[in-house]
């Protein structure tokens, strides 16, 4: 097992799946020779050629719709949008076409497509290139939503996504592309709907996603020095959402903080907290807390952007406020 970056893990997942199954192909803007906006598809064009790593015009609706149509016709497309923010251009093809095809056609259609989209703030890309939009996708029956936080999960979840017979929205965090971790060389899957306890603890449960898993782990380290034991739970897929693992953890710690980079209001944390309230309210010894982005578009200027992004400090403060 070697150390690889999150980006290398994603690239390896696509390469291995394309080697395994000739129905797998990649399409998107600049994914070919250029290697993708953030370099995630680098080298795949040279290896598999232009018939399988395909540059499209800058037409997000057609990228998503072509993937959906090809998937319904027996292929396994991996479509890339440069930034998750651009899905707005193509929402109909994702929400009304890909997600609903199976149900509204009476179970006959199968739409095994993967839609990879980088999200997250931190690179000074401002309001139209930095959002975290998993709550949008969680709200649409028919989609699955993967949101890996580590290189290991990135590879395993992407292989699961490619092999899944449903449309999968695969959300990568820009600030995680350079993160290193141990990644097995051989292909493997990380199952959907199975949360991972990233750190075991006894005093407070912190459910965190994507980049916030790293922030939660840093916060847990600092809190441990102060005698507070934090359990960090990473759902890894927010649709399906593994509430069982989260509730088990809350039953053990009796305290819950949810941390995500998406805007807090009507964000993914709202669903997690609501389900805990429905199913495990009696186990809570303190109010739940959400650590999330403020209700504003993402600012450009570095100090404001930094202030906008939820931090390890925010998680520490949230934990202390209920302990």
């Amino acid at each position, binding site marked *: 097992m070697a150390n690889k970056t999150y980006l290398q893990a994603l690239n390896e997942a696509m390469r291995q799946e394309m080697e395994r199954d000739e129905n797998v192909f990649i399409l998107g803007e600049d994914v070919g020779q250029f290697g993708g906006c953030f370099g995630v598809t680098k080298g795949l064009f040279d290896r598999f050629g232009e018939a399988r790593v395909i540059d499209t015009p800058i037409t997000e609706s*057609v990228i998503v719709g072509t993937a959906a149509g090809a998937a319904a016709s027996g292929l396994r497309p991996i479509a890339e949008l440069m930034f998750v923010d651009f899905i707005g251009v193509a929402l109909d*093809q994702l929400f009304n076409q890909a997600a609903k095809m199976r149900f509204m056609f009476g179970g006959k259609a199968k739409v095994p497509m993967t839609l990879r989209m980088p999200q997250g703030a931190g690179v000074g890309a401002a309001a139209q290139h930095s959002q975290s939009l998993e709550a949008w996708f969680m709200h649409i029956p028919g989609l699955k939503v993967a949101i890996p936080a580590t290189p290991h999960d990135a590879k395993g979840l992407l292989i699961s996504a490619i092999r899944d017979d449903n449309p999968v929205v695969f959300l990568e965090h820009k600030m995680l592309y350079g993160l290193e971790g141990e990644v097995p060389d051989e292909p493997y899957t990380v199952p959907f709907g199975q949360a991972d306890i990233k750190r075991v603890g006894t005093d407070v449960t912190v459910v965190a996603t994507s980049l916030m898993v790293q922030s939660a782990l840093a916060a847990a380290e600092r809190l441990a020095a102060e005698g507070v034991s934090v359990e960090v739970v990473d759902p890894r897929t927010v649709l399906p959402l593994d509430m069982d693992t989260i509730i088990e953890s809350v039953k053990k710690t009796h305290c819950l903080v949810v941390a995500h980079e998406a805007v807090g209001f009507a964000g993914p944390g709202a669903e997690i907290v609501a389900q805990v309230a429905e199913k495990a309210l009696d186990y809570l010894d303190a109010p739940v807390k959400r650590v999330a982005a403020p209700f504003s578009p993402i600012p450009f200027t570095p100090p404001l952007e930094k202030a906008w992004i939820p931090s390890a400090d925010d998680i520490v403060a949230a934990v202390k406020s209920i302990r």
Partner: protein
Amino acid sequence: MKSPDKKTLLEMFATMNKIREFETKLQEFFAAGKIPGFVHLYLGEEAVATGACAALDTTDSITSTHRGHGHCLAKGGDLRRMMAEIYGRRTGYCKGKGGSMHIADFDLGILGANGIVGAGGPLACGSAFAQKYKKTDRVTVCFFGDGASNQGTTQESLNLASAWKLPLVFVNENNGYGISCPQCKSMAVTDIADRAAAYDMPGVVVDGNDVLAVYEAVTEAVKRARRGEGPSLVECKTYRWRGHFEGDACTYRCVEELNDWLAKDPIPRFATKLVEAGIASQDELEAISVGIKADVEAAVAYAEASPYPDAAELLDDVYA
């Protein structure tokens, strides 16, 4: 080109009658309150779906529109399962979960009627791409209306299909109105086919009430697509006899205009041609339409006798 053989011609006549009778019954039963939701009828436009689908093989595919009954029937859709679906019954094509606007039969290459105007283009690109990728010689036809021709998705799809030389035929059904808005208010061009030039593909205008004209133009386009030469745009000028949906009072158009088009009814026109060419006698054609009336009656009886789905089926088929 060689004219179609007798069998094909009579099948086309039967298909047009099938659509006409199916839609006429729907009109009647919708008014009687037997059918839930919206119904967008295809009456008057039968020659387009019939001519275009007659140019296709069973293994070819189509994407359809919210006015899709005619396309599905012309592509071989089963009358009973179509009717049952529109009635919301479990025996319908979509187990009652799709309804009039979402009928599909992948076995027949019907990739779905569609509730969103202009959504079919990208999906058709995907279907055509898949055939090219798999190196088959199968073709996809994308049906779209004059309203959809103004959607960005349609223009993006025309562009992509041409840039990638996809085996795709865009069949535009220009019925003159996007819901209530006449073409003259929604676009500056007279012929939607002119837009093909922007994408360097052939664009032809045909009389959409002449089933043979549609058949010939689409056959040429399909041949070109099968040869790997890329997409074409065939604009079929026709007219929507009914309102946009059943219940639409149609106050936005005049009776004279409707009457002009009723006089161009594609079915008697085709019947006259068949009789004049000695393909069939008036009696033989009459027998075909009588047989179809019985088939449609049987489909209605089947639909009405079919059960509604059970509430326990609500969560079925959300995921594969």
